[in-house]
């Protein structure tokens, strides 16, 4: 009986196999065509919020672009880059990547390498230190590029970074500087510090030059430690250098420049939210403690945090998700908490540059605006709350009545500081180290500046380009922006 049944089934097998093939093929084809149609029907993405960049544009057809292969390559890249619902789908892809294994001790490293040992006891000559700086800088950039090319996600964030830099330099200032990858420890991302001592000496010396050029002005150096200094677990000790050592190293070369000990001020509050977990910046609360330390060092009054209103942007996921592609960061958003002064009057004037390819190509007419820009919940741009970005000079006039006028020369970390100093200085000029077209001595002298604060994070204090920028400010001639408009305004009056 059993044999009969078996025979019967065998006879039916070809038909069954055919039906199986039809079922299989139709299912796969339906799925394939559904995805294909979805890619064609739904509107294509134009911006990636996750990577904070504009996506590829459809390439322009020319015979040259066709025969060079750029056009066809551009079409493929455009199609792949501008997929509908791109961020949601790449988040899903990142989540799938998480299934490849598990995290040891809750740690995942992205492009991190062990660091070669370097002594802070440098007795090199100036020329030697310059060349070593260059090689250090280039080796760190090559390390960065190699680590980025090693992974699709990191590569993506790096390639996006270069584009993003053109549009939004505020959140890009870490990309071309020395870093040793990203460690995600629990739900906190740490950019690993790979700073070089040799740049530190040059950084100190350029600040000394400012003091020499403006002997009657108080010059302060605040090197702001980053989160890896305080939150990196011991097992990662071999993968980042000591920021404190480098800060002390820089301070040892200062002549007439007053160091501001932001390190100790922050170290005393590491149990509080002084750094953002998902962003490469510090949190506004950390800036508060550093500003307090600065006010103490400069001998100016300082308003207690109770004199500020607390504002919160919920659901903030910062730059480190885009840089690392680590889904843990995406899945653990944080509150971006900032503080708006309520007991001081101030007006903010913007002198904004026009950029192309990351370079200054023009300037907009000056305008008054808000110092604090409110971002909606879930926005990944919340750190731009302070002045909205970097590519500008900002003047804040206050009713502090202290007779002191401050200029802050800073990177994006420094953006969080001025808001706490409105009650301390009559005027605060905020100058970004990458965007300034005046001769700094002439400019600050004309403005009657009494105090200069260099406020840069430890990464930038160990980066050769930082020194170059500040040196250029001392020697460059005024580019002519805004001044050319002034006579017209005067004539009109």
């Amino acid at each position: 009986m059993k044999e009969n049944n078996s025979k019967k089934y065998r006879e039916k097998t070809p038909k069954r196999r055919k039906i199986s093939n039809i079922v299989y093929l139709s299912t796969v084809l339906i799925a394939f065509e559904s995805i294909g149609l979805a890619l064609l029907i739904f509107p294509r993405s134009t911006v990636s919020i996750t990577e904070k960049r504009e996506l590829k544009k459809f390439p322009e057809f020319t015979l040259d672009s066709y025969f060079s292969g750029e056009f066809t390559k551009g079409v493929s890249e455009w199609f792949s880059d501008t997929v509908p619902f791109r961020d949601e789908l790449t988040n899903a892809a990142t989540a799938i990547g998480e299934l490849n294994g598990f995290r040891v001790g809750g740690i995942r490293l992205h492009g991190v390498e062990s660091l070669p040992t370097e002594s802070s006891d440098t007795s090199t000559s100036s020329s030697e230190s310059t060349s070593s700086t260059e090689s250090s800088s280039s080796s760190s950039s090559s390390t960065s590029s190699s680590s980025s090319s090693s992974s699709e996600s990191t590569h993506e964030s790096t390639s996006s970074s270069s584009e993003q830099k053109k549009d939004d330099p505020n959140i890009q200032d870490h990309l071309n500087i020395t870093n040793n990858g990203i460690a995600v420890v629990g739900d906190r991302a740490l950019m690993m510090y790979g700073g070089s001592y040799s740049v530190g000496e040059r950084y100190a010396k350029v600040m000394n030059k400012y003091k020499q050029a403006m002997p009657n002005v108080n010059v302060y150096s605040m090197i702001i430690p980053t989160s890896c200094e305080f939150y990196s677990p011991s097992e990662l000790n071999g993968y980042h250098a000591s920021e404190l050592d480098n800060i002390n190293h820089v301070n040892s070369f200062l002549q007439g420049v007053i160091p501001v000990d932001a390190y100790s001020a922050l170290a005393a509050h590491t149990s509080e939210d002084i750094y953002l977990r998902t962003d490469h910046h510090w949190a506004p609360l950390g800036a508060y403690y550093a500003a307090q330390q600065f006010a103490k060092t400069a001998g100016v009054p300082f308003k207690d945090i109770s004199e500020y209103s607390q504002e919160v942007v919920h659901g903030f996921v910062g730059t480190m998700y885009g840089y690392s592609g680590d889904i843990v960061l995406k899945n653990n958003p944080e509150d971006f908490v900032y503080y708006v002064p309520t007991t001081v009057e101030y007006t903010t004037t913007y002198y904004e540059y026009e950029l192309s390819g990351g370079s200054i190509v023009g300037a907009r007419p000056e305008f008054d605006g808000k110092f604090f820009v409110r971002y909606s919940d879930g926005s990944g741009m919340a750190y731009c709350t302070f002045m909205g970005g970097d590519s500008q000079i900002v003047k804040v006039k206050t009713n502090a009545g202290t007779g002191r006028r401050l200029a802050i020369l800073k990177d994006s970390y420094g953006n969080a500081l001025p808001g706490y100093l409105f009650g301390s200085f009559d005027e605060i000029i905020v100058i970004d180290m990458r965007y300034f077209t005046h001769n700094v001595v002439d400019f600050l002298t004309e403005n009657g500046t009494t105090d200069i604060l260099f406020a840069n994070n430890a990464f930038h204090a160990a980066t050769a380009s930082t020194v170059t920028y500040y040196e250029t400010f001392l020697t460059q001639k005024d580019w002519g922006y805004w001044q050319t408009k002034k006579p017209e305004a005067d004539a009109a009056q």
Partner: protein
Amino acid sequence: MVFSDLFFLYIFIPAVAICYALARCGDRARLKAAETGRAPRYANANLCPYTNAVLIVFSLIFYAWGEPIYIFLMLASVVMNYFVGLFIARGKQSSKPALVVGLVLNIAIIGVFKYADFLVDTLNLTGIGIPKPNIALPIGISFFTFQSISYLIDVYRREVKAQRNFFSLLLYISMFPQLIAGPIVRYSTISEEISNRTINFNDISEGSFRFLIGLGKKVILANQLAEISSKFLDGNLSSLTTGGAWLGIFAYTLQIYFDFSGYSDMAIGMGRCFGFHFDENFNHPYIARTITDFWRRWHISLGSFFRDYVYIPLGGNRRHQPLNILIVWFMTGLWHGASWNFVLWGLYFGAIIMLEKYTILKIKDKIPPIFLHLYSIFVIVFGWVIFYFVDFSRLGEFIPILFGGGKAGGWDAVVHGELMGNIWLLIGAVICCFPISKIIGYFYDKSASSDSAGGEVVLTGLKTICSLAILVVSTLLLIGSTTNPFLYLRF
């Protein structure tokens, strides 16, 4: 254009599929008209002119997408081989000179476009100072040139007839599934199918499944393994630990297999959907017990090419075998790239294969299989070290690290984190090196359910779920991935 590209998957493939289906209707109508006497019917006629035309047009678009200039080189190569083939077939007196001319021209093409810079660099080592021509490598030149050579030799040997229809030869050489990264399809394999082929549901079903398996190998395994390998192999070697070196090269060992065999699977699968049956190019090479066995399983179409067109004509086992082996493996290495490390890699395997003939092959039945596997894997992995580092100084730096001679020590948190962070991927990849489908088929056939409708449903269900998962996951992983070339595209 590469197979693992969203534009290829969701624009090119649907376009070619729709046009191919319409053309097939045209071919059928034409055949029916011939059968009913409404149209003339010729013996040996091309029964698929419309589908062939579609394949040729799309193959040219496919190639021109990546090589808008060098497509003319490829077309010129086809024209040349077409006429040379006809001359070879003409008669005894003209066949040998024609073959020689054909071989010289084909070798000249690959020599100029692939090896000119390498040759100049090598000569310049003697201090001559010849300016470097800087010729860009046309995609797939190694594959379509070797196919052309095999065609000419097979015609000369009277193993196949010369193709008198230029477009049929153009289709054979330019067919996009195998154009740019193989397998090196012999003309005899598909000569009949070029002019007369049938397609049924089974072909399309099996072909689609094979294509998706290949896609998964490339996108899910190879691309993700590439992240691990380049993390350790492309970085600063002075900070590389021994563990990192092994993890990196182990990941690369898996990556190159899934990358290349994935491409071959996709090519074979697509060919099947169009009614062509290409020969297998891989047969689970990492389960080999000897290196001789490995090379019978790895890139089979290249190995058989050198065997049939170089090794045997040189005398094979009969005359000066060691010299023949040396020549074949020198050429095998050089075929993979215009760099001395590839030559060294080829000679490394040639030497081991020669040694095996006098040692392991004679006693392999007495050695426990596990030791043979371990020996083979070690030799293969070490071979990939030579293959990976084009720069000899980095190769020289890397090898001591493998054996504990690095400055960074044996193990660190980076290696540990990377290993554990990808442990399932690595284990999954290792499992996929085994002939899983054959194992499943074996147990399925042995089980009682193989005769039941339920068994068929389960098998089809598994196949469908597996295919859908690969399709969805691969699509997700390809989003935003703009540089995703197959490793063998550079050869």
